[in-house]
């Protein structure tokens, strides 16, 4: 239902070009929760922003079969209404000068959706939906009076009130305590059952495995592996994915994580496989050319010369 085709993003850093995304293809179907995993700096957030047209990029975004890459005006408004984003840091993502009610009602007011009473009802309903009860009490206070978890719920409520088809959730739980993560993730599970699709960006595979149907793994601006959650978690193919999964800590005394990758801080190679300097299985071929995605089993693709 929303699809990014060969999306490339270039940043200028200190006058030099930095290729944040290198022709990434990604697709999220209706009612699907898709995980996007990778380490920091791999371009996950940039991809999320590009697919919502919040970031200049080269490539194409297809939404409901239409090319929306260069839409403007009314069609853009429609796109904005139906596609929402939840940010990582709820403290920064909410204007603390506004009351919670106004924070959530902002989108509806921008799009002139409904009368005052209708807006009020929608806001209360979405507050209830994210578990801020009683909603009347929360609606009339300021963001500074809420905790991080509650604020993130407000940020989610702000997107839900628009009844979106697609949500980019940019590390929605990474800023939150472990104890309240499950509650937030449960909201996305509920959304899935109502047919809303989500792109869940995270650096933590255990989180994303909890809710997602499929997972994309990114490394330095490239998708290196994609597949169903079970395929990725139980049968990771790419050396980077394997490393990612084996590094998930297990709450067990004496458990040791064996580092799978060579932990070297090396510059990004100009050509060849981006993982080449750190890969334990590297070959001569990897140094010069970049592997394409190949299918290893139905729905499971990986970009590595090992397969």
């Amino acid at each position, binding site marked *: 239902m929303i699809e990014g085709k060969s999306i490339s993003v270039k940043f200028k850093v200190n006058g030099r070009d930095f290729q944040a995304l290198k022709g990434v293809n990604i697709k999220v179907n209706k009612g699907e929760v898709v995980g996007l995993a990778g380490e920091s700096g791999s371009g996950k957030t940039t991809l999320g922003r590009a697919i*919502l047209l*919040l970031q200049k990029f080269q490539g194409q975004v297809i939404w409901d079969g239409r090319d929306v890459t260069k839409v403007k005006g009314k069609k*853009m*408004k429609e796109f*904005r*209404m139906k596609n*929402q*984003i939840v*940010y990582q*840091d709820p403290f*920064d*993502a*909410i*204007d*603390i*000068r506004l009351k919670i009610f106004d924070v959530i009602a*902002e*989108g509806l007011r*921008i*799009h002139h959706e409904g009368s005052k009473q209708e807006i009020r009802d929608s806001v209360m309903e979405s507050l209830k939906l994210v578990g801020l009860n009683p909603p009347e009490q929360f609606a009339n206070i300021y963001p*500074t009076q809420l905790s991080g978890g509650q604020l993130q719920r407000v*940020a989610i409520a*702000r997107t839900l009130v*628009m009844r979106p088809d697609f949500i980019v959730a940019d590390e929605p739980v990474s800023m939150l305590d472990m104890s309240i993560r499950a509650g937030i993730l449960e909201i996305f599970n509920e959304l899935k059952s109502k047919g809303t699709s989500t792109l869940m960006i995270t650096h933590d595979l255990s989180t994303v495995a909890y809710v997602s149907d499929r997972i994309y793994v990114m490394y330095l601006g490239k998708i290196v592996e994609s597949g169903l959650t079970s395929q990725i978690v139980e049968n990771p193919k790419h050396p980077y994915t394997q490393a990612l999964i084996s590094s998930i800590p297990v709450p067990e005394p004496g458990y040791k994580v064996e580092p799978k990758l060579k932990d070297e801080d090396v510059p990004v190679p100009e050509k060849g496989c981006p993982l080449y300097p750190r890969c334990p299985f590297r070959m001569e071929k990897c140094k010069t050319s970049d592997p394409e995605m190949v299918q290893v089993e139905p729905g499971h693709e990986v970009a590595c010369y090992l397969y």
Partner: protein
Amino acid sequence: MNKTLKSLFKRKSFLISFAILIFFVIISATANLLTPYTNPYEFSQEYIANPYSPPDWASIFPQYSGLPPTTTYQFTTSHAVVQKEGNVSFTKNSTYVIGELQGKNSCLNVSYPFTYNSPAYKKAPSSFSLNFTGLIKTSSSTDVQVNIYLIHGNKSYFLESFVPVDYSFNFLYPTCPLPVNSVSNFSIESGGLNFVNSPYISSLSGSARLEGGILIPSLIFKGDPTSYNVMVSVKDLSGGPVSAYISPPKLKNEGYLYGILGTDFRGSSVFSEFVLGARFDLELSVATSLVIVGIGLILGLIAGYKGGKTDTVLNSVTDFFLTIPTLPLLIVLESVLVATNLILNVNKAFIIFTLIALLSWMATMKIIRSATFTLKGRTFVEASRALGGGSFHILFKHLIPNLLGIIVAQIAYDVPTVILVESGLDFLGLGITSFPTWGNMLGYASHELTASNGFVWWWILPPGLGIILLSAAFYFIGTALRDVLSPYKTRGEA
């Protein structure tokens, strides 16, 4: 809002500054009630006491004790004692004693009793002034004489004699001829009496005659408080019908102590200069700083929000303006515009207002621009865009409300800047000179100080302290408002 006010009033610096500001606002707003003068630099409003007179209350200091104070005797027609000779009838209303004279040598004498009680006159000879208005209605063939006397016991001092003909005469400044039957305004000013126009002085001996104008008080008022009469006498010399309208005189003993803040080199009231100057400075500086912040806000917002080439262009323009040395340019522009009469019929205050506004917006622009940059980078601005908000929505719903603290603070910060620049121009004599401002008070003081006997603190300190206090007050108010109105500042961010 209540919470904002509460946290504002919790700050001591804000409270004190607010009190200072309120004080200046009140004296500016009530300036017309506090002082009877509209422009103390005008000739008619000068010399209300002797020049360089210290304030009344300064007599508690030894060097000013014993100076004669300035006293005014106000009369109303109800005080008038009327004598008549010949065929005369009279009536009184609130402004005039009206007499109808008929027959040769008929005479109307209107006298007002008063007690002269300035015991200190011997230490310093003080002068006095006497003003009254007379309206004589008669045919041009009738001769009328108006005489003015001071009467003490049996002795009468014949001060002056007028013959109202078809011109009004004021011995200091002859005015244009007036037609018969119109108001003639006679006044006796201190120093104005001489042996030509005063029969009394011409009766004195040679040396006393020369000093007569100045020494009249000491010649007539012999010391101990006693009662006197001032008398205006109208005499019909040729017998035609004459209507005489005589106003109560204003008698003033010009002492060496005056009012709340004394007098300057003109003998004008420093207090009224201070109050009127405060009003002008407040009005001009607040208006100018609003315009400055207006320009800075618009340019800063555009540059900060648009970024890219727009920002580069606007920023370069601002940098260009910043390189201009403001005060010298102001001096040159102001002098050229005024001296060449390039702009005719434009208020000088308006020229200054425009020039300062056009040359002072740069700092505000830079501050607003950088604050906009910071705010624009915050996630909630992008979140608003992701919700579908356009540039206008983001500017008016998120950026400007979050910049409010800085905007208000900038208005407050720019006020002292304007006060200082404007006062600087006035001080140099390039700004406003025709009516009092704090700057030109100090400017005149620096020019005329040498002529004074000692340090004229009552003239220098009020405008000087006024500039300092008002500037500091605005600075602290600005800081307090910035802190209270910027939500992210209070949380220790941005």
